Each structure stands twice: as structure tokens, then as C-alpha cells.
């Protein structure tokens, strides 16, 4: 198996509060890994650790995370986050910017100002995010005057524009209606051809539909990690079985 991200003995803390306990997990390249588990189990924290966004909210970690064999704690977080992009639970387009500039933000603010370079990247990213046909005539409109589902795809396009290797998604569809959700899921299916995707989700059908492997987290521990079909049909652990069958959580 071709490993993209290798996590060993990861522990995460907010102050003295330990929220992740001894997590070891390998995330394969160009696959979708779903992280499931009840609220407060540490799945969002785990996702944030992967591109050091946990530091933004005051978290610390021990253990090792390697991306392509490179130790993550030794990288510059700013450069790291260009390689591991993140899509958040609630769509968060920049309200002062047009659709075009929202997509171009990551590049523009890092020095790429030439419209000749930006225009094809914006078009490509919006097409990848399956939003191009809906907004191509209104690229100069505000990024917040479109529907919630469109905003979330705009945020995905914005993440894709900086050309990441990995896309981390933190419940990307939980604030969206079913039609927008299915669009995001189709999108994930398309994107995994070129990207490695880690998605945190509360929705077990979603995990079953989009992911290749699924990790079940409970109380800060990794209970079980296996092929998605195995987790949902024949889990090895009793807790996993109880959770995926809806008996708790």
C-alpha cells in the first residue's frame, strides 16, 4: 500500500486535557478515509493535527505524523497547509471578495497577482468543484450571495486552487441540504483520482458511500480502522458494531 500520511502514537492535548490517545494510522494515497465516531471523540482534532490547524485553537501534540516520509512538526505550518488543504463544516467564503477572488485568495495573498495566470486556475478549480456552470457568468459577484451548497463548493474550489496533495474535510456536508450533500459526495468521488482525502463525518451512510477505509474513534481512541465494507458489514470490535448499527452515539 502506498502511504501518504503515516501517524504514529499521536496524542493531542488542549491544555492538560488529553483528547487523542495513542493514535497510529496510515492513510493511503489517492484514497478516501472516513473518520466516524460520536461527538467529542476527537475526530475533528485528529483532522486538524494533520495540517497543524490544532495550533490555531491552542492544541499541542506528541508522537509523529509523517507526510510522504517528512516529519510534520519540522515543517513550516504555512507551507504545510498549502499541501494539506482544509474544508470546514460551515461554508466560510470571504464576504468581502468576489467569487473569482475567493477562489484565487490562496494564490493572490501569496504573491500571484497576474490575472493571466489566475484566470485558468480559477476556472479549473471551479470546474473540479462542479460549480463552474452555475457561476461562470457571475464571477464578479459576492462569494456570499450564493446558496449554502454553492458556498461550500466554492470553499472546496478555493482549497483546490492552491493545488494541495491532501484535502481534509471536516463534516463538509453537515450544514447542507440533501441535494447539495449528494453533489459534494459525487465531488469527493471525482477528487480522489488526484487527491488523498480524509473526511470527518457524522453521517454513517455518507462514510459508507464515499470512503475506501473507515476509522472509528471513541473517547479519543482509535477503536477500529479497516476497509469501509468491513467496518459496516463485519466489524471486528463490539463498540464499532454498536455504533454503526446505531445502538449508541
Amino acid at each position, binding site marked *: 500500500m502506498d502511504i501518504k500520511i503515516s501517524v504514529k502514537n499521536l496524542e493531542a492535548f488542549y491544555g492538560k486535557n488529553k483528547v487523542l490517545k495513542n493514535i497510529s494510522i496510515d492513510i493511503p494515497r489517492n484514497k478516501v478515509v472516513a473518520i466516524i465516531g460520536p461527538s467529542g471523540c476527537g475526530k475533528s482534532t485528529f483532522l486538524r493535527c494533520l495540517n497543524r490547524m490544532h495550533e490555531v485553537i491552542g492544541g499541542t501534540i506528541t508522537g509523529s505524523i509523517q507526510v510522504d516520509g517528512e516529519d510534520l512538526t519540522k515543517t513550516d505550518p504555512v507551507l504545510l497547509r498549502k499541501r494539506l488543504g482544509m474544508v470546514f463544516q460551515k461554508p466560510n467564503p470571504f464576504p468581502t471578495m468576489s467569487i473569482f477572488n475567493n477562489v484565487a*485568495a490562496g494564490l493572490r495573498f501569496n504573491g500571484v497577482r497576474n490575472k493571466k495566470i489566475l484566470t485558468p486556475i480559477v476556472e479549473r478549480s471551479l470546474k473540479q468543484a462542479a460549480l463552474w456552470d452555475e457561476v461562470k457568468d457571475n464571477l464578479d459577484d459576492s462569494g456570499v450571495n450564493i446558496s449554502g451548497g454553492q458556498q461550500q463548493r466554492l470553499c472546496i474550489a478555493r482549497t483546490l486552487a492552491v493545488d494541495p496533495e491532501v484535502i481534509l474535510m471536516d463534516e463538509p456536508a453537515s450544514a447542507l441540504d440533501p441535494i447539495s450533500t449528494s453533489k459534494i459526495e459525487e465531488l469527493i468521488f471525482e477528487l480522489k483520482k488526484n487527491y488523498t482525502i480524509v473526511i470527518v463525518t457524522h453521517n454513517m451512510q455518507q462514510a459508507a458511500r464515499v470512503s475506501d477505509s473507515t476509522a472509528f474513534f471513541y473517547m479519543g481512541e482509535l477503536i477500529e480502522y479497516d476497509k469501509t465494507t468491513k467496518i459496516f458489514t463485519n466489524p471486528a470490535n463490539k463498540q464499532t458494531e454498536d455504533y454503526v448499527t446505531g445502538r449508541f452515539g
Partner: protein
Amino acid sequence: MNPSKFFHIKRKVTSVIMMSLSLVATLIALVPLVFIFYYTISKGISYLNIDFFIAMPKPVGETGGGMANAIAGTLLLIGIGGVIGIPVGVMTGTYLSEFGNNKFGSVVRFLTDVLSGVPSIVVGVVAYTLVVIPMKHFSALAGGIALGILMIPTITRTTEEMIKLVPHSLREAGLALGIPKWKTTILIVLKTAWKGIATGILLGLSRAAGETAPLLFTALGNRFWSTKVGQPIASLSVYIYDYAKAPFEDWNQQAWTAALVLMLMISILSLTFRIVTRSKYKTK
């Protein structure tokens, strides 16, 4: 009567009473405002002509003349004040909101609150001691510095509050795109909060434009045309003070006109700010 219906009526009556009380309170609050506008306009309008804006004050005994020097002086003074107060205020506010979640931050916050409560005449005395005495004469610079200091707390606190209103998710969006923290702060957070910050700046400038006490012994006043930063300078507020207490009917009238012009200047400033900071996009 059935009890639920009784409570329903009771709630409706309470609601009507409270609404009326709020309305009365609003009307009472509006009374002084209406009177100020009414008096200033009705008394000031008679001298409001082109001359007032382009002519210089006439010596005692001669009627007519204008306050061109005072209008230019007020603009220069709030200009100098703004050059000092706006950057210091905006940057302090940004610091407090983005990085000031510590002991030092709360000390700064406390001192800013204290500063906003310091009487403006005290700030004038400070500017007198720090600028006028070493320079050995009154100057527009000293007046501008006093006004700048007075603007700082208003601008700082509004900036901080406005930046705090920017959702944390926007900062995270910026950081997650690999945009460094300082760029995220300036290009995303400050830009999003800009409209509110502009309101704070405007409040600071308007307040400074009307200040008289700190100008009396810093900028002093000047009967002649001057735009020299190092020289004493006229201002509308000091003219209002001098002319209103003078024993000449003609001067008293001109004081009203000066007050009207000052109010117009602040309104124009306010309007300009609103147009400049108007959002490019219509909100739904």
C-alpha cells in the same frame, strides 16, 4: 374567564405599555437633538454665505467677513490628529483583538478605557507640556497632537470590537489556505471589519473636530490665514468659543454660523466615509 385567555390579554397589555414607554423615551432623547439642529440652523443661516468660507474675519466694529482661516485650521488640525490617532488606534485595536489575549493586553485595554475618560483639557495640558513648552510657542502641531491623543481610545476600542465580530472561521479559512497569519489579519480580518472600523475613525474625527478646551493652549488661535504646522492656527471651535462670549451682536451671530459650518463639515465627512466604505456588493 379562562386563565390562559387572561394571561394572553395581560401579556398584550404589558407589551403595549412597554412599547409606549420606549417610544416616549426615544422622543425625549430626540428633543435636545431637534433643538440643537433648530437653533443652529435658524440662527446660523443668516451669515451663511460664500464670504463665510472664503473671507477672513473682520476687525471689531466692521460687519461681514468670514472664517476661511478657521475652516482651514480645523481641517488641518483634525488632519494632523488623524495622522496620529488613526494608525495608532487601528493598530492597537488590531493587536488587542488578535494578539492581546494576555496580561499585557488587558493592561492596554484598561489604560485605553482610562484614557477615554480623561477630560480633554487634561490632554491639552499634556500636549502643552510636551510640545508647546519645548517649542516655546503655540502651534498647529501641538493642537493636532492633543486631538490625536483624544481620538486614540475611541478608534482603538471600536476597532477591537469590530474585529472581534469577524467570525473565527474566516481566520481559519485564511490560515488553512497557507496564508501567513499577518496577511490573514490584514487582508482578510481587517478588510472584513473595515466598515465598522471606519465608523470608529469617523466618531474619533468628529469628536476631535468639536474639541475646544485642548486647543486653547496648544493651537491657541490665529486672526490671520495660516496653514503652517509650526505656527498658532485658528479653528472653528475656538472661534465659536471666542465669538459666542464676545459682547458684539455681530460676533454672536457669526458664532452660530461657525457652529453650523462645523456641523456641516462633520456631516460631509460622515457621508464621504459612508460612500467610500460602501460595500461593493449588495447584501441580500
